């Protein structure tokens, strides 16, 4: 046990901050991610991480908290995508790709300016790959509030969101503003991507958004079960990642720790691969026992997801 | 006309997911013949064409082209698939696509002789495509694209041209035009044609032979030989009547039987 938990792990201040922030952001990403996956909006999710990168690096340059930059960039991106109408369309890959490319190019510029104008170093690695151990404890309340708000919004639009994932016509027929729901959801995606960017960095936050979600959608039969399982997977991956990164400081001869985000992404990746193994699917069959009813539409939302190739 | 058949399909069988799609299908096509492969949707026409092209291997049986076993690289077969979607953003003119029919199999950059350019011009003329030859392939209408694909397949002078459901989704006038075009082009270029369709009436004026496919089994011969009550009843396994009216053929099952497996135009079906 001593080997696993290197000295000072639980008493180290930054580690505690990391554990809290990591858990909260992973949880939010996992829950939002389940809907992303079910609605086949992984491409939009990935696009949001690019604009979050631009936002984060720009904020760093302007001396604003990167968290605000990540979220701000993402929200602006969500709005722009809604305007252009790329919510469910991934066919304009080339065009979107080029636009995202310029956003990333802009991020490159900001990061360059960061390193030459400010006294701090390591902007690139912080923004892109995260710096969970150097987060100010004072950010915790903000992160918790934003996460809570995001989850509350999901809870609020749960039924319309679910319905609109099945059928656009049904949603409209019930007088629900389809586009409004879609935009609101994009914004929750932007916020969760922004939040997890401070933990694992913006270009890796896709992993926390879709990894645990995709794995759990494969293994469960109801949205609620998927959200719970995804949260568990996300938080476990994050905590273990923090642990291993901390330990790697002691394990690695040169004394250079490996980045937390590397461990978190690897664990998420491994969890996803494991979720695909038949032996796992068979033995976790009990997870599929739960059935979903959303009021008057007694239908398994994940029957829809089964149409989505995962 | 040589004596060796251009195409011999010899007792070909193919099963998929427990279903017998093709069950001992045999027929021959000789040089210059226009053959219609008739069968209702889903009966296995595309599968049969794919087997003939060598894109799918049958469970048993053999396909021979000009007496020799199939080789994908033999250029004796030309193919026009059912639905080809081409992005209108792709920078290739119709005439360039036809030219590719000559030499897409060659290595190296485009090096086309004046003679080859002439061949392309002639081909475009033959299929009535000069009007839109310089337009992008992807921006052509369905009917225009079809002519281009036919030209592309024909320019390498195959002995047999296979077309998969070229008449589906066409209005009656276009159907007549394409059938006439194919007939003309086939005799001009001395190429045999095997064309699949779910309705035989449009082809009656030009068909030399028919291969009638149902439930994996086929009957082949001239229209008069095959489209008869006795022959088709045996094929279907239940009684069907064949009526001839105003030069058109109508195949009707007994009352109470499903007419779904009888290939014809929906408005001709009698319940």
């Amino acid at each position: 046990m001593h080997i696993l938990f290197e000295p000072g792990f639980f008493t180290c201040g930054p580690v505690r901050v990391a554990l809290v922030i990591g858990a909260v952001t992973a949880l939010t990403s996992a829950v939002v991610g389940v809907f992303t996956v079910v609605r086949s909006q992984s491409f939009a999710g990935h696009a949001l991480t690019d604009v979050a990168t631009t936002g984060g690096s720009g904020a760093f340059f302007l001396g604003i908290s990167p968290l605000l930059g990540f979220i701000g960039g993402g929200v602006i991106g969500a709005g722009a995508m809604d305007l252009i109408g790329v919510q469910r369309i991934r066919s304009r890959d080339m065009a979107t790709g080029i636009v995202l490319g310029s956003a990333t190019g802009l991020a490159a510029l900001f990061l360059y300016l960061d390193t030459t104008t400010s006294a701090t170093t390591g902007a690139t690695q912080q923004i892109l790959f995260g710096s969970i151990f150097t987060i100010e404890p004072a950010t915790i309340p903000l992160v918790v509030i934003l996460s809570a708000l995001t989850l509350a919004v999901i809870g609020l639009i749960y039924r319309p969101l679910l319905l609109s994932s099945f059928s656009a016509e049904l949603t409209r027929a019930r007088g629900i503003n389809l586009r409004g729901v879609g935009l609101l959801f994009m914004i929750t995606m932007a916020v969760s991507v922004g939040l997890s960017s401070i933990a694992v960095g913006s270009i890796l936050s896709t992993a926390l958004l879709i990894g645990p979600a995709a794995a759990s959608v494969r293994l469960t039969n109801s949205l609620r079960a998927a959200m719970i399982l995804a949260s568990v997977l996300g938080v476990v991956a994050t905590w273990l990642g923090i642990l291993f990164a901390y330990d790697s400081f002691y394990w690695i001869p040169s004394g250079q720790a490996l980045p937390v985000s590397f461990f978190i992404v690897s664990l998420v990746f491994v969890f996803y691969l494991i979720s695909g193994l038949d032996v796992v699917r068979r033995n976790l069959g009990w997870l599929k026992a739960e059935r979903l009813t959303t009021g008057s539409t007694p239908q398994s939302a994940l029957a829809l997801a089964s149409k989505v190739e995962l | 006309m040589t004596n060796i058949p251009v195409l011999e399909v010899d007792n070909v069988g193919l099963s998929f997911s427990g279903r017998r799609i093709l069950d001992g299908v045999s027929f021959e096509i000789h040089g210059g013949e226009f053959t219609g492969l008739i069968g209702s949707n889903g009966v296995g026409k595309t599968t049969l064409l794919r087997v003939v092209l060598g894109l799918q291997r049958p469970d048993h049986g053999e396909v021979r082209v000009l007496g020799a076993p199939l080789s994908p690289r033999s250029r004796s077969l030309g193919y026009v698939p059912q639905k080809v979607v081409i992005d209108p953003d792709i920078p290739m003119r119709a005439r360039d696509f036809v030219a590719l029919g000559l030499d897409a199999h060659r290595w190296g950059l485009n090096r086309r002789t004046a003679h080859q350019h002439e061949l392309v011009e002639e081909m475009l003329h033959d299929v009535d495509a000069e009007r839109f030859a310089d337009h992008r392939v992807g921006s052509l209408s369905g009917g225009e694209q079809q002519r281009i694909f036919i030209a592309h397949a024909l320019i390498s002078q195959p002995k047999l041209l296979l077309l998969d459901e070229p008449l589906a989704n066409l209005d009656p006038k276009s159907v007549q035009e394409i059938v006439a075009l194919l007939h003309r082009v086939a005799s001009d270029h001395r190429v045999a044609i095997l064309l699949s369709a779910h309705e035989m009436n449009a082809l009656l004026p030009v068909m030399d032979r028919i291969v009638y496919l149902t439930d994996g089994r086929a009957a082949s011969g001239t229209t008069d030989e095959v489209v008869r009550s006795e022959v088709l009843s045996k094929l279907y396994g239940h009684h069907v009547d064949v009526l001839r009216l105003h030069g058109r053929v109508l195949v009707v099952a007994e009352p109470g039987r499903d007419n779904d497996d009888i290939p014809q135009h929906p408005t001709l079906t009698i319940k």
Partner: protein
Amino acid sequence: MFTGFMANAWQAATIVAIVAGVVGFFVVLRGSAFAAHAIPNGAFAGAAGANLLAVNPLIGLGVFSLGAALGIGAMSRRGRPDAVTALTLVMMLALGAAFLSQSTQYEPEIFSLLFGEILGVSSSQILPVAVLGVVCIVAVAVLYRRLLLTSIAPEIAAARGLRPQRIETAFLVVVACATTMTVPVVGALLIFTLMIGPPAAARCFTNRTERAMLGSVVIALLTVWMAIACSYETNWPVGFYVSVFSATWYGVGRVFVAWRKTHGVHLE
């Protein structure tokens, strides 16, 4: 601007642009946007690994790019779903970050690998880069007609015995080769803008295949030259200029297409 170590930069940039223009033409034709993202991410991990092992970066770039290319080929054949491909992309980046964390030059290395470095190719590497470039171009030239037909009408190509699967694998290997030599200059995260922008723009201006490819090369050259010049003057990253100029050319192309449509003008 043109002497001394900058001479390297111009030579490297020119080769990079020609290869990106030629290979990118087919990337766009085949719609291989995913490969264009994924292979450079692999290249990043490879370069980072090479940096750690103090090995020639071209080797790391080459090995990992090739691995990524073949992996993509295998995954597409088996119809691999979206999630695993997205996660693999991200995994490569994380791996690269891990490798770099162990080197002493963490920050500058990350930056130049991801966003490009005007002097990303040292003078000792110009020759290998040029050789790789020639290999790419020759490969495309040899496969040219087959590539065209298998990209545009794979069914017809298959019926003619052209084996679209094999051509796909060969093409991915060419993209890997192109990535190996272009990433040091333009950066792993931004190279795809150079491979996609100029060809997508060029085909807005002509119907003819050869002209579109030539246009792709010309636009790529202009993009890279302007990027190098601007980067030299301002010290801002090359990748930034490449991505912005590529997007601009693409925008110009689409505007031209829209103008053409409303005025009923037909292209040559």
